[in-house]
């Protein structure tokens, strides 16, 4: 009986999501705005992520093999194709372009459908979750991530990366992932969880600013804004609104196409929850 009911419900929900363009039964929709113009590329967010999320330091050899575990990496490019600098002339005229890249928490994530054991799935919070202890390590999700933001534990790192007493620093709110497990940025889900816990204990809803992700908290220029997109009073919602980026569309329809705000590789229809604001160049 439940089979039929579930079937009907799921289909009706699905159909509604088609008709109503982004119909979601989300409790929250955690989203982010990163102002690339404010980002200085200082890397503080990345190290804060290492500290918060028990990221393994893999060492020189493994980093060289491309097995580094930086959930949040700050990429740096020298050219600026968008304003015509396809190629840098003899000497750099502007600075570089920095891009903090963490899991984009896609709403139509390419990693989720391919996981054979559903270790990657979508939570009612709009998060693209990875359940470490369910993961079998097929690595299909990482292969299918156009952003290449999933990191695999190629080794057991806990002995090499945290020689005693470094292990005392490990955050008990998250596991230390062992070999064979895929991992990625979680939008600091342990902080979300604890904020929700506090809110529930106080019989209220989570309010904007109850918590911050580690990267957002540490960002010296406040380039990272994080919050609930469904909460219309949240800063992140206001920014999405201001720059007219929307979930549920592949191509953003903006009144003013010059308005900043884009999501990375929108054309792939992955629907990321992270909006980047274009870097500005005074030329």
């Amino acid at each position: 009986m439940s089979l039929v009911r579930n079937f009907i419900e799921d289909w009706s929900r699905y159909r509604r999501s088609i008709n109503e363009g982004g119909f979601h039964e989300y409790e929250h929709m955690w989203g982010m705005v990163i102002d690339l113009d404010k980002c200085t590329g200082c890397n503080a967010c990345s190290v804060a992520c290492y500290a918060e999320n028990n990221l393994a330091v893999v060492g020189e050899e493994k980093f060289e093999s491309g097995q580094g575990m930086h959930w949040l990496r700050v990429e740096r490019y020298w050219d600026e194709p968008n304003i015509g600098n396809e190629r840098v002339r003899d000497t750099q005229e502007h600075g570089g372009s920095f891009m903090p890249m963490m899991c984009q928490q896609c709403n139509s994530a390419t990693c989720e459908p391919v996981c054979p054991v559903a270790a990657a799935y979508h939570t009612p919070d709009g998060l693209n979750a990875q359940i470490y202890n369910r993961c079998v390590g097929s690595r299909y999700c990482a292969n299918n991530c156009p952003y290449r933001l999933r990191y695999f534990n190629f080794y057991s790192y806990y002995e090499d990366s945290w020689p005693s007493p470094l292990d005392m620093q490990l955050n008990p709110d998250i596991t230390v992932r062992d070999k064979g497990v895929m991992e990625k940025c979680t939008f600091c889900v342990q902080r979300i969880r604890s904020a929700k816990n506090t809110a529930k204990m106080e019989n209220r809803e989570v309010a904007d600013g109850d918590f911050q992700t580690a990267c957002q908290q540490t960002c010296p220029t406040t380039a990272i804004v994080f919050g609930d997109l469904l909460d219309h009073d949240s800063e992140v919602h206001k920014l999405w609104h201001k720059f007219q980026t929307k979930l549920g569309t592949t191509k953003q329809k903006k009144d003013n196409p010059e308005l900043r705000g884009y999501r990375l590789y929108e054309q792939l229809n992955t629907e990321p929850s992270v909006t980047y604001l274009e870097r500005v160049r005074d030329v």
Partner: protein
Amino acid sequence: MEAEAETCHPRPRRSLALSLWTAMMVVALILGNALLAKPSLADEIMTPRKQVPSAFSGWLDEDVGPFPGVVAPEGTYEGKDVEQPIEFPHDLHTATNKINCLYCHTYARRSAVAGIPPTSKCMGCHSIIATDRPRIKQLTEYWDKGQSPPWKKVHDLPDYVRFTHERHLKKFLFDNPDMTVERVDEVCALCHGDVTKMTVAKKQKPLTMGFCTRCHQANGGTFDCQKCHK
């Protein structure tokens, strides 16, 4: 070889039945699809649900609960005896002396972990009461050395599991109008068994994922993996 060709073809009416069946499936799908696309109709069909229903829900006898507002999770487990540094008599404290669980495991209402009471709490009573008993002498010995007894963990969840005591107590005890704090032991018993009959605590419930999910199903708990797995 010609004979083969004759026999391997299905008879016409059989194939007709097949194609009819298929066609019916397709039509049903399209029709159902179209009907369900209308939200109002879909709403009529389905009752709003509070929890994820499941085929397993029938396995739980929903009428039987140890106290109102809860369906007891199914499952028993025969835990092994754990050798503690001091053989702490839970029965004496809870059954005989009627000490509330939360008096000693005081963090349970405020934190994810229930916590072992600090040794000072033990000594609060036992610097006066029953000081001549051998187990109390053991305790006093630790206290005098400035140490806490190295208790062994009995109810240990795997490290990738996040369980919070405070929220479970809130749901079953503090937010439950039928319950009073005096009856907290009934709430604890859901997962810890009846400690009033034990000296040293023993694992009495399997505390497996199935045990958790069955209870979550019956009592409307979450099904978001990430809520319980870290």
